[in-house]
């Protein structure tokens, strides 16, 4: 089956893509760039990095900018998926949804309206197991945003490795946060994965810290380099 992946550039959508690729042909990535930082659906730091990730994977990117107004942004998502369907003849969509019924049901509805299959290979997966699978699959992700107590500046730009998973698991048990960031506590950016032909090298970045356990690791410039 020809599939498009709803791709944010983070660990979950990359893992979902890799799982889907074991069974189907991935014809395009679909990225929604939201101008609204409060968007429930799409706000992701470093969404522009998907341009490089698309080149690294040699999979074309369908990219749509949305103002991010609630529910209206869903019209923009539908337009993007329709464009992917028309341009690449995809028969289905893959998402990295894990727990959010809000996001999952909206994508399911759009797929239903556009007569597309919808696949959520990470659905209801245990979050710590998910983090370890990211490592096992060789996905190199960094933390590009933190949005919950007690996550501080030191996490920004840090790699998701075994030590970090242990740290996040410990915090999750004491602070009621989701260790994999499913509640929006953490955002990640993937710099390399087995499906990347080249890896991403960050040449200019900035830590933006807004206090109140809220900050981002913004990638301003990056390039593709040989692996």
């Amino acid at each position, binding site marked *: 089956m020809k599939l498009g992946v709803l791709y944010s550039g983070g660990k979950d959508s990359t893992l979902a893509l890799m799982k889907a690729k074991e069974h189907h042909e991935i014809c395009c990535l679909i990225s929604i760039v939201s101008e609204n930082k409060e968007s429930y659906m799409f706000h992701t730091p470093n969404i522009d990095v998907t341009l490089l990730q698309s080149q690294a994977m040699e999979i074309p990117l369908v990219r749509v900018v949305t103002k991010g107004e609630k529910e209206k942004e869903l019209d923009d998502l539908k337009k993007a998926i329709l464009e992917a369907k028309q341009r690449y003849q995809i028969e289905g969509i893959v998402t990295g949804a894990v727990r959010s019924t809000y996001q999952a*049901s909206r994508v*399911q509805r759009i797929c239903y309206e556009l007569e597309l299959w*919808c696949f959520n290979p990470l659905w209801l997966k245990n979050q710590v197991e998910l983090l370890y699978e990211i490592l096992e699959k060789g996905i190199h992700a960094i933390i590009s945003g933190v949005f919950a107590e007690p996550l501080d500046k030191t996490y920004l730009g840090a790699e998701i490795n075994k030590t970090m998973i242990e740290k996040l698991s410990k915090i999750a048990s004491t602070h009621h946060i989701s260790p994999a960031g499913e509640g929006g506590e953490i955002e990640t950016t993937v710099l390399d994965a087995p499906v990347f032909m080249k890896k991403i090298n960050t040449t200019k970045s900035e830590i933006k810290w807004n206090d109140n356990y809220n900050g981002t690791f913004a990638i301003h410039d990056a390039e593709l380099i040989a692996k």
Partner: protein
Amino acid sequence: MILIISTCREELSDSEFVRPLAILIEDHNIIHYTRVRPADIAAAKKIIISGTALKDFEYLKHDFSWLLKTNKPVLGICAGMQIIAKAFGIPLEDHTTIGPQKVEVVTENKLAEGNFNAYFLHTKTGTGNFQTLAVSNGKPCMIKHPLSEIYGCIFHPEVMNEEIIRKFTE
């Protein structure tokens, strides 16, 4: 052992509709509906028939007449409930619900009580002469065979109502 019957045409859907059930059941065996043998039914203590992707209707072409003869408790989830309905000659009607909805239990039963929210993902349903255990927006969403322990649940309890799975498998 609880037999989990996968209804998924696509293997990629198993991780979405079958694995979440398996996580909740310690002693289980997963078999695709096309490969279930009488011995598998005989070996099971209880049987759960999974849901599948919204666009998947392949399972409706299959013969599930063993359901008419079994004395094992069965829980059909979404596609699984449609399969039960079809096996018992209940016509399926087009009815689409996607996302969380309120559910009200209207008949005392072993699996659920009171009011709760549940996750729906279906485009067809059928309830016929089965007993209505719960409704959502006035429409039956949990049903039971009038005589045997055969249940149908058109919503996905593994998403927001794990206790229904636990009570069934107990």
